[in-house]
């Protein structure tokens, strides 16, 4: 599947989960975007301006980077740096459609088994050498090489062959049709390197819109505009300075005092405190990331559908969104197919109204007339402890007596404990398409089937959605999946997280994306 369980040791799974699920989304899917309030959208007017009108240096506060080799990056700051030094073959636009980047055009042939990409002309690496099809072939062969044990090896295990079929033409041949292959090609790691690069961790030789001029680990990385960038007029900035902050409070203070221009990682409270700050725009959008409240359904008490329903009926999702996320993000509907997946999300099946009495009644019928005592396990990160406390109060009204156990992530995810416990809260990062969640979390044989959910109809629909090349059929399968999860899924998804940003109003053209790492600074520039 999309995860690389057989490559990494079992004992590293917890680490990978923390990295992959919680902090990181493998491909920052571009959701609804929102330009800064006073910033007019970058329209045609720009081309009327004379060329080389680059102005402004954007100073960005981010967490320090640890990895610089694109094959190993994972945090949002690492992806942010790589995303501007290198280019993807294809990118994803705000409406979550695949758009050209280095590949200007492509054809899908042979029933979805062959993809032929045409590369842009005149693309140069920062060292002056031209981009050729060989570079793309070498890049993806490296990413899928099982010997190198890269995180992407599993993702690309479906690729049978990659060939340079022309100076600027690359052909990918797949083993099985994969409706999401183009999204997979835009995975965070899939930045095109020069063929035979040996020292990607230190050399920064990309084709991207910015060149690295200096990098002081744990301090800052300074980028200047690549004047030979293959898209004319881009980037619009003279340069980008990424200043490393370990503490989000310090980063926000630096923004307030004008030492940095942009902050993208901060708590809801900090974000709220910036709302009335003069000279600063705040932006927020919902992402596809969510907290999953799940009940094990293969043993008591979760093996009784009435108990599952009682939990759902006792939950007030809107109140949770208001309390735990302060209203930012979006209300969940117990399915990982969130409102940002506009082509798949459906509100056709109503979520039953909160009904404490009905929940009590169901519990009583299920054999718990005196109520149900259960421990709720939660990692100590993000809003999860708060979520646990709010759930405890809501459920108590229905006779579900929860004992909250707040655990460090190393304990919660350690020794597969999170897959073992009856009732738990797990954070899942934003993904570019919903199939991932269904495949690794909810299918009967899924590697991380934490709720131990096993439903033949659901599995069949998931397989259909994951392999069908017929978009209508796919959408229909996703719609039914949402209905099943609302009706009998042992999961509650109360909300989807928000992604925040705060930027100095001196800049325009900034678009916020669900995964901060995939933010595109090419269009940002200083306001006249």
């Amino acid at each position, binding site marked *: 599947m999309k995860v690389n369980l057989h490559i990494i040791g079992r004992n590293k799974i917890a680490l990978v989960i923390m990295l992959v699920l919680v902090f990181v989304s493998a491909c920052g899917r571009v959701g609804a975007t929102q330009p800064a309030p006073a910033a007019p959208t970058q329209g045609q007017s720009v081309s009327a301006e004379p060329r080389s009108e680059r102005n402004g240096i954007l100073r960005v506060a981010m967490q320090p980077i640890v990895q610089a080799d694109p094959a190993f990056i994972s945090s949002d700051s690492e992806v942010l740096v790589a995303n501007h030094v290198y280019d993807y073959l294809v990118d994803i636009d705000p409406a979550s459609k695949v758009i050209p980047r280095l590949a200007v055009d492509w054809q899908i042939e042979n029933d979805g088994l062959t993809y032929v990409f045409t590369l842009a002309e005149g693309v140069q690496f920062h060292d002056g050498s031209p981009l050729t099809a060989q570079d793309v072939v070498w890049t993806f062969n490296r990413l899928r090489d099982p010997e190198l044990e890269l995180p992407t090896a599993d993702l690309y295990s479906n690729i049978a062959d990659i060939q340079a079929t022309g100076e600027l033409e690359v052909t990918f041949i797949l083993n099985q049709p994969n409706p999401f292959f183009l999204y997979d090609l835009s995975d965070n790691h899939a930045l095109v390197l020069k063929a035979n690069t040996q020292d990607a961790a230190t050399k920064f030789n990309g084709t991207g819109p910015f060149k690295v001029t200096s990098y002081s680990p744990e301090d800052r990385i300074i980028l200047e505009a690549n004047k030979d960038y293959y898209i004319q007029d881009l980037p619009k900035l003279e340069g980008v300075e990424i200043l490393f902050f370990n503490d989000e409070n310090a980063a926000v203070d630096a923004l307030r005092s004008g030492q940095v221009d942009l902050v993208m990682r901060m*708590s*809801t*409270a*900090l974000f*709220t*405190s910036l709302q009335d700050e003069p000279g600063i725009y705040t932006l927020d959008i919902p992402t596809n990331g969510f907290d999953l409240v799940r009940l094990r359904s293969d043993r008591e008490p979760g093996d009784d559908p009435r108990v599952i329903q009682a939990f759902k009926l006792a939950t007030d999702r809107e*109140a949770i969104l*208001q*309390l*735990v996320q*302060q209203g930012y993000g979006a209300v969940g509907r117990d399915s990982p197919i969130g409102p940002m997946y506009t082509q798949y999300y459906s509100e056709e099946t109503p979520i039953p109204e909160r009904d404490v009495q009905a929940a009590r009644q169901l519990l009583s019928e299920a054999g718990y007339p005196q109520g149900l005592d259960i421990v709720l396990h939660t990692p*100590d990160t993000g809003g999860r*402890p*708060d979520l*646990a*406390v*709010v759930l*405890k*109060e809501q459920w108590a009204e229905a006779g579900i007596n929860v*004992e*909250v*156990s*707040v655990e460090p992530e190393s304990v919660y995810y350690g020794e597969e404990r999170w897959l073992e416990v009856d009732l738990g809260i797990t954070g899942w990062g934003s993904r570019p398409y919903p199939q991932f969640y269904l495949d690794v979390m909810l299918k009967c044989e899924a590697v991380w089937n934490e709720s131990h959910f096993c439903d033949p109809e659901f599995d069949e629909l998931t397989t259909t959605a994951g392999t069908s090349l017929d978009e209508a059929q796919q959408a229909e399968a996703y719609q039914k999946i949402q209905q099943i999860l609302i009706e009998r899924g042992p999961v509650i998804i109360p909300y989807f997280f928000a992604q925040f940003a705060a930027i100095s109003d001196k800049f325009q053209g900034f678009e916020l994306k669900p995964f901060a790492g995939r933010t595109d600074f090419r269009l940002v520039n200083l306001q006249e």
Partner: protein
Amino acid sequence: MATHTGAAPSRGRRFVSQLRRLYAVPTAAFGTTVFVLFLALALLGPWIAPYGANQQDYQGARMAPSSLHWFGTDHLGRDVFSRVLLGAGEILWLSGGGTLLAVLCGTAIGLLSGYLGGWLDELIMRLFDSLLALPALLLALLMLGILGASAWSVLIVMVVVYTPIVARVVRSVVLSVKTRGFVEAARLQGESLGWILFREILPSVLPTLAVETAVRFSYGIFLVASLGFLGVGVQPPSPNWGLMVKEARQTISQTPWALYYPAGAISILVIGVNLMADGLKRIFQTRHD
């Protein structure tokens, strides 16, 4: 030196006279008043708290202090005043209970070890030395990691952390007393071990023990709050003051009151108990001299 208890006036009258002496020292009077006030609040808390400790109101979250919510509401819409009030009972119960248990164990072990001496004394004291070599908080974290976080674990941790300290203090007094004439006399009379320890030696230990108890108690409050703050002690949604500070720290820019009041309560109580301990020490030292 402490007198033999046989001739002492009734216990009640002695307690009152000591209390009077405590109140003669202004700082001790202040400390004792604070402590008694908190104790009263803790006892009355469940009756006078205007809201439940965990009662959430999502429309009334993050409200500044007002006549409706004296200390404001926190990020989950819980009344901070009620939580501070109800948290008083919890923290006094845990730190008080833990201290008392530790004092009981420590006194028994200290008396026995000091009086009997020999290899048993050596063994116990070396064992305690090794325990004391670890900082209290580190030892507590270690134990909670094994026991799992809960109120009972915190109680056990306090006993383990403070018993060695109390035992050493008691033992040092026993060592200076056990060679004195009245102990020798009792031994020659053929009194039982229990009689000698508890009727002859213990009264001499009591003044030191009272001071030690008060000092341990103030450290205990701090320990319970610290463990709550570190998130390894009492679990949410308990209104533990340390835990409240931890939770409010995340939203300090929005709800500073949710942090200031529990933090203030911890400081005032700890200072109060410390001053009281100071006063006790002064009284007993003057009598000692």
